[in-house]
Structure formats: structure tokens, C-alpha cells
């Protein structure tokens, strides 16, 4: 593989990684910044008996963060493997 090809692989790897990161940050911003901004509206609904806005802040967004990180790592591992940057554990 020439140096140029290697550079190309890295660029495409980084483009994919960057796109994944942008999606993750958009979801993060939604659950951490947008949800609290509309909490009064959400509180008019009920979920599992909770006022929905309160539920999202007390549990919903937290669960979302955990899921976001686990899914991100699963996708990132797939990207690493696709470009041959996966590591042996």
C-alpha cells in the first residue's frame, strides 16, 4: 500500500468517525439541553404516573445517555474494524 492510499484510508476513517460523533453530540444536546427547555410543556403529560417532564430529567435523559454511549461504542468498533484499525482485546 502506498503512503497515499494509507492517507486516503485514514481520511475516510476519520470522516466516518466524525459523522458518528456529530450524530452523538446532536442526540446529547437534545436530551441535555432541549428537553429541560420544554419541561413545563412535557409536564402536562403523564408517563408511568410521573409528570413526563420530571420523568425525563430524573430518569429518561439519564437512560438516553447510557444508551447513546453503548450504541456509539458499538458503531465505533464497527468503523474501526472496517478500516482495519480494530484492536485485539
Amino acid at each position, binding site marked *: 500500500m502506498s503512503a497515499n492510499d494509507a492517507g486516503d484510508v*485514514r481520511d475516510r*476513517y*476519520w470522516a466516518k*468517525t466524525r459523522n458518528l*460523533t456529530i450524530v*452523538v*453530540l446532536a442526540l*446529547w444536546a437534545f*436530551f*441535555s*439541553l432541549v428537553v*429541560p*427547555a420544554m*419541561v*413545563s410543556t412535557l*409536564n402536562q403529560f*403523564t*408517563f*408511568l*404516573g*410521573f*409528570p413526563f*417532564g*420530571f*420523568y425525563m*430529567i*430524573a*430518569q429518561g*435523559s*439519564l*437512560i438516553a*445517555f*447510557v444508551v*447513546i*454511549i*453503548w450504541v*456509539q*461504542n458499538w458503531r*465505533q*468498533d464497527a468503523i*474501526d474494524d472496517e478500516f482495519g*484499525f*480494530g*484492536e*485485539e*482485546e
Partner: protein
Amino acid sequence: MALIQGRFIDNIGRVYAIYTGGFLAFILLMAVLEQLGVGADTIGILFVAFTIAIYALIGWLSRTMEVDAYYVAGRQVPAVYNGMATAADWMSGASFVALAGGVYFGGYGYMAFIVGWTGGYVLVNSLMAPYLRKFGCYTVPDFIGTRYGGNLARLCAVIVLVVASFTYVTAQINATGTIAARALHIPFSYGVWFGLLGILLCSMLGGMRAVTWTQVAQYIVLIIAYLVPVIWMSNAQGFGLIPHFTYGEAAANMANFEAQYGLNPPAEAIAGLSVLTTPHTGPVGDYAEWKFITLALCMMCGTASLPHILMRYFTTPTVRSARKSVAWSLLFIFLLYFTAPALATLTKLQLLDPNLPTAIIGKPFEEVASLAWIQNWSSVGFLAIADQNSDGILQLNEFFMRPDIVVLATPEIAGLPYVISGLVAAGGMAAAMSTADGLLLAIANALSHDLYYKMIDPKADTAVRLIVARILLVGIGALGALIASLQLTGILGAVAWAFCFACSGLFFPLALGVWWKRANRPGAVAGMAAGFIAGSLYLYYVYTGGTPWFGLDHLRFGIVGMAVSLVAMVVVTLLTPAPDEEIQRMVEETRVPTGPAILSDKH
């Protein structure tokens, strides 16, 4: 020692399973002793003394004279255990002791801390941890110093790190002192030094390696201690074994109780104690949503810039396991944070709901005044009741309490056996000690590695470096204890400040160091210095009585610091030449998970 270390890593699951079993057996033994009539004081002392002895033993067994083991635990900590250690490192006295109490009194607005302290891990995972691990640094200023080059950048990072972490550590030593004082019946000023002794026993001999393995042990203690009372209360109140999904009705009903008793300020305030005046489930007041978001944002960006957390991810074997360990960390942290609002709600219900036998609000004043737990906590000045309208009934605004004691007092409020109170004290101790350990180590390592070895005496040999690191550890710990014993700040305010200092100075230089190849040395120095100085000046302005801009009070000064930091860094970078070829190649290497680390093994 190497042989034992190898065997330990292989058997780690079994070691901690035995440890957990042993701890549960110890709790049962204490319960039996309580039934046999052993006094509450003795049980409290046994709980605190036994757990500290275990941590000290682990610290002794993990002693080391190797640089790699001392700074990054030999880079062989498996992801799950690093996740537990990070969780203990993370959840401080503020999270364990003060958080649920804050939600109890502060209501909805206070939950910004919960969102901030979990959401921050998304930033750690996507912007920082994997790349810093690939870099192969020992400390956070190590990354700044190498990425941007030059001692000035390194020095700026060391200063921000020391200020942020030191602010944080005094709060933790304060918390260990408070708990030690109460459990061991010694004055607070001795309690602080006793707490420090426990902290140093864990970290001095083995550095990062010892701190890692004690933090795993401390996580196990603190999470058991946090969950047991909540599950117990939930059963007693008929919410089932796992209250988190079933207390919705209770949270919704809280508005009825609030309306019934009225959320009024007290007729006559009592200094240092609070009455309940804020609603439980929704925002109130000017800028309520904005204040929530800005506080959450400061806490999240602070999470991603606090060195004692970032350096935990330097201890994993690979980049992939660093990421995996962030995911485990958040899961372990989440267990506590999603329990905190449940604990606050259930405790409030115990006191307010007239259908429960433990309710006190709306009951005859004399009857409440004769309760044992009211008398116990009143006698130390943490709680007070006063029949200020002289109607012979305890009203909601006549019940005064210090927010910090809600978690510690909950077992007694709910009428649980004393063994649970002892367990909670041990858990609070574990939380405060583990965080203090991580912070002291972060400060001492930055000073010994970055300031002493990299800047003052690059030829120093290993033994000297590690002795300097240990002397600094003891010196800084003593200084922290001295300041803590003066009780200048509350636990929670100091913690919020630490996050704001860290994000003002370090967030953008760290993130842009990876994500913006063009970022250069003058830009980074400007970002760190301008952000940190602007944040500090704004804090001074607000704290000395200045009118906050847009409701940005002293807990949120990181917003000002970060804004200035970002603008300064981008403008100065664009006005000065791009970094040279070598630095740009280094950034490219950082972005790829495989291949050798940027910094060599024993740099």
C-alpha cells in the same frame, strides 16, 4: 510483587466477589450485634473503622516503586473495573451525601446536577477519552504540553488543574471529616485529619495502582449503602422492590401535599437550616429553564475537563477498552443518580404523607418533639422544629433541616434499624475518600511529573521522581485538610466551582487539540489563560455582590469562562501561523486507535 500482580489481575473477579460477600457478611454480623443489644455508637465506629482498614490494606498490598504503575497503574486495568473505579472517583461526598438532600429542598432546579453529572460522560466518550488514551500521556498537562509544545502551555494547564482540583479536594476532606467526626465521636477538626490519614494510606504507597484497587472496593461499599435504604423504604411504603419505575404517583401527588401544607417561607428563619419552599416536579422563577440548562452545561463540560476523571482512562490497556470503560463508568454512576430523585421523593413522602406512620407534618407539635431522631439531630444543630405560629401543630414551614443530612438521616426518619445508618455512614466515607484520593493524586502527579520532571529537572531518576510525587501528595493533603478545617465553604458550592474552573480553562484546549488540527500554541495558551481569568473575575464579581448577568450566578461562572476561552482560542489561533508539519502528523496519529502511542512508554 510482579508475580502477585499478575495473579491478582487474573483472579480479580474472584477477589472482589469474596470482598463483596465479606462485606455483606459484615453487615449481617452488625445486624446480629444490634439485636444482641450492642449500642448504636459502637456499630457506627465498627462500620467506619472496618471499611477504612480494608482500604488501607489494599493500599499497602499495591505499593510500588515503578513509574508506570505509580502514574497509570501499569496500563492494565480491565474496562469493567476501571469503570467501577471511575464511578467511585466520580461520586464524591457531594453526590452521595448532598445530592438527594439538594433535590429534596431545591426540587426540580437542583436536578440539573443529575443531568450534568451523567450527560458529561457522552462528551468524555466522544471528544476526549479514546484520543487521550492513544496519546499515551501520564497526566492531562502532559497532553497539552506535548500537543501544543512548550512549557508555557504546560504550565497554564498545571495551574488550572491545581486550582480546580484543590477547590474540589477541600470539599471532600471536609466531608470525610464530618462523617468521621459523627461516627467516631471526635471533634470535626480532628475528624478532618483522621479522614486525611485514611486517604493517604490508600494512595501514598501505590499511587494510581493502589488508588484504582481501593476505588473498586469503595464503589462496592457506596453503591450498596445507597441502594439498601431506598429499597427498604420502598418496600415499607408499598412501591415494590425497585421503586424507580413505581414512584410516579408519589411524585405527581407531591403537588397535592405541597398545596395542602403550603410552600411558605418560615415566619422566622434559622441560620444554616432550610425549610421546604420549592415545588418538587417543575421549574419556577425567572430564567428557570435557562438556569437549569446553563448549570447542566457547566457540569457536563466540567466533567469532560476534570483531570482526575480523564486520567482514569489512561490506565486501560487499549483505546477500545478506554471507550468501553467510559460506558461502564456511566452505567455504574447512573445507578446512583437515578436513585437520588427516588430517595428524595420517598423521604419527603415519609414526612408529608398523613397515611404513613412516620409522617410529622400536620401532627401535634409535642408528639413530634418527642421523637428520638428529631432529638438526636436537633442536639447537634442539624435540625430544628419551632412552633412559630403557636397553633400546637407542626407546619411545613416550621420544620427546619440542613440539606446535607437528608441522606444520612433517612434511615432514622424511615424507622430503619441502626445498622443501616452505620452502613450509610460507611458509604458516605467511601464516596468522599475515593474522590479525595483521585484528586490528590491528580494534583501531585501534575506537579511532580509536569512541573518538576518535565520543567525543572528532566534528568531526575525514577526513585527521586516518585519520592517527590509522594512528598507533594502528603503536603497538598495536609494543606487541603488545614483549609477544610477552617470550614470556609460548603461542600456543594465548592464542587460546582471546581467544575466551572476546569471547564473555563481546559475544555476547549483539550477538545480542539484533537478535533482542530489548526489549533496552535498561542491559541491554546490564550484559551486557557483568558478563559480561566475571565471565569475567576466573573466569580469574584458575582460573589462580592455584583448583579449576575442573565441569572448566571456563582455556580454557573463556567459559562462566561468557556465563552471567553473559545473566542480567545479561535481568534488567536487564526491570527498566528498554523502548527508545524510534525504537530499536524501527531494529531493525525492521535485520531487512529491502533499503532504506537505518541509518547513513549516511560517518558
